[in-house]
């Protein structure tokens, strides 16, 4: 009896150990239930990102309250972040333990990595089109947009690997916030379309100092004429405007090319004179702009409320604030006749769970975030635009846009102009291909600009040898040599198994064979003894 018990325990342990080897939990694909079971209670979690903006937090909370009032059987728990990177990191950590949130604000690049988990993220195509619970479906208890009412370009950004894995929540682009007073003081006039040549020329002119080391343009000891917040976007847009390689749609890395070297060389030239720096090296462009220590602050349109002497949000001491006229323009261009700028902003995805009803509750909540009230309220907090034509064309949103400059709070002119900039240029926006590894490639794109800027400031030689080493380091640090092999999400052909994997599988098979042999042997022995 003892032997049998021991054997069963051993077998169970072996099975648990072997299943444990898989690392992450297996998950069945989501299947749409026939109906939403409202006799049950559901508790879902929503991981959201705000721009360190308490109004945005309040909008999330109001949205949750509004949804819970319509669906009293669903409780939504909000977890707030101020950094997409932290959400990404936490999701990755929670995939392996099966404790992902239900709904999450994210970037499509990040979802491509989440998709390496088995059925981890719910493909939304079936949900979009469901007659009862789909976008604007008959059983949905609020005025949701139809699929056609989501701006097609924004929705396309959420499709990859043959499916929609997300819906857009807000959209923004990048913008150049300019101290017009200083540009004119230097003898220049801001052109209709900003060009790179113009920005670099004015930035260099602004580095002139007097005999005491004060900058002539502002009379201060500090002046960084051009500061870029997100250098990954900078490199991506520069390459796009130059028609140079970044990556293919299926994940082949093309960024290590001669145009990249040429662009980095130019950046180095301007870093050397002090005409250019970055957020990571110096701090927020808005703070320098508002202190009269920067002329071109390049940041997200969703950072507009921090930009300018009259900005509603100011992060420097009052006595440091300098008064100047602010102008907002699209990012500098190489070809003004063919402007190109990035489309960015938060999207939302639904994580799969064992209970399809819980997934359906999550989907309904996500859909609620696309309703006009939520879309317009959130878009008005920053230089965002709503992602549905239903919200964009609504009387409430049109009224908001028409009141540009009415005050320096809700109707702050730079903020509304930032939104208008994207509305006018949606057709000129682009996104980079999404694949497993695209988030790393994006990091590498920014890291190259940071590295060349730092290296120049540290008086290192920027030459061919430097570029060779830089490209090698980036490839290794961001695992870009492996990216192509991983492209295409979970369905990608990963090629033959490596030798170590084959050996491990062989050992597992042998262990099972030995266990089975032992069981048979013991059974025969028992039978023989019984006779």
């Amino acid at each position, binding site marked *: 009896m003892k032997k049998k018990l021991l054997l069963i325990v051993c077998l169970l342990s072996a099975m648990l150990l072997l299943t444990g080897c898989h690392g992450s939990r297996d998950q069945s694909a989501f299947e749409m239930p026939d109906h939403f079971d409202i006799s049950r209670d559901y508790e879902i979690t929503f991981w959201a990102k705000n721009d360190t903006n308490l109004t945005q937090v309040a909008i999330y909370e109001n949205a949750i309250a509004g949804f819970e009032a319509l669906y009293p059987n669903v409780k939504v728990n909000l977890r707030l972040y101020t950094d997409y990177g932290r959400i990404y990191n936490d999701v990755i950590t929670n995939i392996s333990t099966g404790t992902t949130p239900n709904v999450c604000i994210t970037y499509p690049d990040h979802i491509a990595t989440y998709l390496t988990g088995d059925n981890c993220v719910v493909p939304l195509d079936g949900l979009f089109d469901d007659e009862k619970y789909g976008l604007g479906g008959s059983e949905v208890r609020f005025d949701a947009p139809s699929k056609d009412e989501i701006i097609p370009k924004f929705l396309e950004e959420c499709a990859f690997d043959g499916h929609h894995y997300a819906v857009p929540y807000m959209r923004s682009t990048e913008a150049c916030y300019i101290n017009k007073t200083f540009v004119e003081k230097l003898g220049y006039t801001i052109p209709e379309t900003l060009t790179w040549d113009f920005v670099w020329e004015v930035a260099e002119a602004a580095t002139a100092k007097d005999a005491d080391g004060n900058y002539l343009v502002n009379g201060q000891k500090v002046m960084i004429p051009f500061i870029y917040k997100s250098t990954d976007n900078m490199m991506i847009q520069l390459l796009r405007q130059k028609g140079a390689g970044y990556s293919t749609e299926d994940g082949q890395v093309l960024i290590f090319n001669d145009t990249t070297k040429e662009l980095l060389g130019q950046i180095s030239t301007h870093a050397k004179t002090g005409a250019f720096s970055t957020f990571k090296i110096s701090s927020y462009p808005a703070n320098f702009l508002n202190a009269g220590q920067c002329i071109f602050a390049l940041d997200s349109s969703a950072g507009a409320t921090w930009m300018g002497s009259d900005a509603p949000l100011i992060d*420097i001491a009052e006595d440091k604030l300098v008064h100047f006229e602010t102008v907002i323009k699209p990012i500098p261009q190489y070809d003004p006749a063919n402007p190109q700028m990035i489309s960015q902003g938060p999207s939302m995805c639904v994580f799969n769970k064992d209970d399809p009803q819980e997934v359906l509750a999550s989907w309904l909540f996500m859909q609620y975030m696309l309703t006009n009230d939520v879309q317009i309220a959130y878009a008005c907090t920053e230089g965002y635009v709503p992602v549905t034509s239903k919200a964009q064309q609504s009387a409430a949103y049109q009224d908001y846009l028409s009141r540009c400059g009415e005050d320096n709070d809700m109707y702050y002119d730079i903020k509304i102009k930032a939104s208008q900039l994207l509305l006018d240029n949606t057709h000129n926006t682009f996104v980079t291909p999404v694949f497993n590894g695209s988030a790393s490639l994006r990091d590498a794109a920014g890291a190259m600009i940071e590295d060349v800027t730092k290296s120049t400031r540290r008086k290192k030689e920027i030459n061919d040898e430097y570029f060779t080493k830089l490209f090698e380091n980036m490839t290794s640090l961001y695992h870009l040599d492996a990216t192509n092999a991983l492209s295409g999400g979970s369905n990608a052909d990963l090629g033959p198994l490596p030798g170590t994997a084959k050996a491990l599988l062989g050992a597992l098979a042998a262990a099972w064979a030995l266990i089975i042999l032992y069981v048979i042997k013991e059974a025969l022995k028992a039978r023989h003894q019984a006779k």
Partner: protein
Amino acid sequence: MKKFLALMMTLMMVLSIAGCTVAEEAKVMTYAEYDAAEMDAEVVIEAYVQATQSWWDNKITVYAQDQDGAYFLYEMACSEEDAAKLVPGTKIKVTGYKGQWAGEIEVMDATFTFVEGADTFIAEAKDVTELLGTDELIKSQNQLVAFKGLTLEAVEYKNGEPGDDIYVTVSYNGQNYSFCVERYLTGPDTEVYKAVGELKVGDKIDVEGFLYWYEGVNTHITSVAVAQ
């Protein structure tokens, strides 16, 4: 002649080896030398860990100090295993670049090694209350400091609710100052995080913390007590 040549070659070899050694072993700076170093210069220092922010992505941010001054080691390269060994008092040798971010002088892109067999040092908080509002205060940047008898003006959670940083506005001699409970240094589970959350506007408080800078003084609070 042959002997002379051999001697010369040997000498050259010895010198080149010594040269290599010198290049590899950069001189450790005193705090004064570090303080005098230009921005973006390579710096090598030895200092004692006073506190760390949470380890993340093979990086750790360290508050370090010696008997002469303090250092903010921003996102220093560090394995998770080594991070566990960076306990207060531990002496480390750090190589990185001097940088300035929003007024905060820090060591960027740093790597480190443990100084084996070294002594330990835990700094005592230096009372700098009377330096508030003066140009002298910044000379104690990054050190563990104390402020006595401040008045609490406002407590604001970064996200509107506990979980992230807490922005603390205090006043002294009629002037307001922004301090911070940095989530990655003293998170929601720590006593100081909870204690700050329970303070009332108008409370007279004594504060200890690291003299961080963000567009002006922005002490990272490590302890708080209502003044007796």
